[in-house]
């Protein structure tokens, strides 16, 4: 019943269940493709302009995809009140949270990996700055959205209008992280500035909020 065993057992279980209900995955994948296509119709810039706005476009698209994924974080645990079974057991709350957050993270990163080549293609994107820096930006930024999103998804279990509650809580809080992700990405694409400060901000943001989530998750889980 150690932290790691509970977390990995939960993560494995979630991956297995997600894999078995392939319709959900397929629907999400198709949805991400749709988002990219809609954006490419809505925003049709020249190659020069697109380097300036692509950062914003890409991250808004990722944000949409993330919210759709995050909203169903606890769906299986709410069906049949499985969450009660977890709460009634002596297992600590944090491994459950971490497993869910990591699961969401993997899922959203996969979606981003699929959407990115499409964006590159539609907007003829090319990084004028150090392109490899986009990887840590993507990972740190995604974690920032997912760690808080998983936590707020748990809060929204205890509210009315669940699906709207999650973005309502997530968006305002994520403003600094979004600014960082977007500006970092734009800096790399245009090659005009260094993204270092933004990356540092994201690291600090991730550390602070992951800690806050771990400290407060149990309070929220037990708040019936």
């Amino acid at each position, binding site marked *: 019943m150690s932290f790691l065993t509970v977390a990995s057992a939960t993560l494995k279980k979630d991956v297995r269940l997600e894999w*078995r209900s392939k319709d959900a995955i397929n629907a999400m994948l198709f949805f991400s493709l749709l988002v990219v296509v809609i954006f490419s119709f809505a925003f049709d810039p020249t190659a020069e302009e697109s380097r300036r706005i692509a950062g914003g476009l890409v991250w808004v698209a990722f944000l949409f995809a993330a919210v759709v994924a995050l909203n169903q974080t606890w769906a299986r645990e709410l069906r*049949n009140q499985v969450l009660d079974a977890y709460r009634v*057991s002596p*297992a600590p709350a944090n491994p459950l949270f971490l497993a869910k957050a990591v699961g969401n993270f993997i899922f959203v990163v996969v979606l981003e990996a699929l959407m990115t080549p499409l964006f590159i293609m539609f907007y003829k994107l090319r990084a004028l700055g150090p392109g490899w820096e986009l990887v840590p930006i993507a990972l740190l930024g995604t974690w920032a959205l997912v760690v808080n999103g998983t936590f707020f998804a748990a809060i929204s279990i205890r509210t009315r209008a669940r699906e709207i509650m999650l973005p309502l809580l997530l968006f305002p809080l994520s403003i600094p992280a979004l600014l960082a992700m977007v500006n970092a990405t734009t800096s790399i694409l245009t090659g005009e500035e260094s993204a270092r400060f933004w990356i540092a901000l994201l690291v600090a943001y991730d550390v602070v909020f992951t800690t806050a989530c771990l400290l407060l998750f149990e309070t929220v889980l037990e708040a019936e």
Partner: protein
Amino acid sequence: MASSLTTVVVTEGLIKQFGRFAALRAISETFGGGKLYVIVGDNGAGKTTLLRTIAGLASPTRGTVSVLGATEVRQVRAQIGYMAHPSLLYDEMTGLENLRYFAGLYGVSGEDRCRNAIKTVKLDPDLDRPVGQYSQGMRQRMSLARALLNDPSLLLLDEPFSNVDARSAKEMAALLAQLRDHGKTIFVVTHQPALLEGAADEFVAMEMGKVVSRTSILQAAQ
């Protein structure tokens, strides 16, 4: 181990309030160990709330509840088994897969424990069907198997016989009596108390958030 404890559940002035509605109104009761208690009453009487409070799923607005000697239920969670009308199982996994996962939450290892729990409720551990495709009777039995995984000394069952076929219900009732004979303390909330008429030690009647009577005779409780 439970039978050496004289009191398993003690509530004092237990009040549970939801906004303007008081589901439990100052309940002060003592429940001894090794007995089978059947809680009866109309809808809204507070039976489920009481059970959930004992299970640690709901916390008192005022007053105290002490379970297995602990004031914080979380300290004794390893000794509690809980079952409710929803199955508390993942529909997409088989019974054994479900139990393996929950066994991990209790630090209970061993394929055998899971298999034995399933056999105890007279189901087939190797059944390859996901729980979502079970009949209601099978699902309730598998849910009971989950509640028994950690060999709890205190069992809390909320409407275990609901929508269950007559034969499964009788088998479950017999199993509960057996578990009580082995020293477990069992609380059953049900609308079908007749199923446990021979086996129950006490019928606890609740009405409007209070315990109005405790008797060993079913007739008197209704």
